[in-house]
């Protein structure tokens, strides 16, 4: 499923315009320990994290993740959004908790 369809199905806002919306979401990975994400995530995963600093974009690029999802309406720095647009990594945001996002994403991806 493309990131654009995934975001629409989950009711998440896209903070980064058109950048990277064609990327394929293969699964979901949730963790706020960056080295753990790089060790355990799979290519194409949508990554849920509460971190919003610019290094998250590098983690997503280097680990081939499909997008970053920021839960609970945590604001994202403009520098991070700019870097994400440049690198083609979509950043999605919504009011749901990490748990709710995982649960609903599971339903959508296994449909």
């Amino acid at each position, binding site marked *: 499923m493309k990131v654009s369809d995934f975001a629409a199905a989950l009711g998440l806002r896209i903070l980064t315009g058109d950048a990277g919306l064609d990327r394929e979401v293969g699964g979901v990975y949730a963790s*706020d*320990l*960056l*080295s*753990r994400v*790089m*060790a355990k995530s799979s*290519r194409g995963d949508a990554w849920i*994290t509460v*971190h919003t*600093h*610019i*290094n*998250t*974009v*590098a*983690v997503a*690029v*280097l*680990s*081939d993740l499909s997008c970053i999802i920021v839960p609970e309406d945590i604001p994202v720095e403009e*520098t991070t959004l700019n870097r994400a647009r440049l*690198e083609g990594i979509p950043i999605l945001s919504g009011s749901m908790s990490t748990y709710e996002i995982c649960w609903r994403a599971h339903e959508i991806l296994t449909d």
Partner: protein
Amino acid sequence: MNYVLPVGDFLMAGEASSNVKKILNQLGIPPRIVKRTAVAMYEAELNAVIHAYGGRAEVEITKDFIVVEVIDDGPGIPDIELAMTEGYSTAPDEIREMGFGAGMGLPNIKRNADEFSIESEVGKGTRVRIVVYFNR
């Protein structure tokens, strides 16, 4: 091909490895191998920025493999065996709050590299060497 890349400040961490990732993609190296290389190099780059005062990366790319050396003139590592233990980290609180400091960086490098070595001298600096083969 030989590159020397600066491993700069905290916000720029990842520049050097992103660069190398783009080059490997252009060369048509399989994505799985590119990811292993990029993650290993980024972890080394981050360590040079977080635990030392930045440094440089020397990258050599041949037909069959890539060699990445990340070199810093930082404080060095007193006990490498301990540093290699998963979960061991001396990262300060403000760095941990950013999601670093799981103590998984060096183990990640080792797992992703086909060859890995680390040399360090207290007060002098640290040199991490990573080799990844393209056709294995």
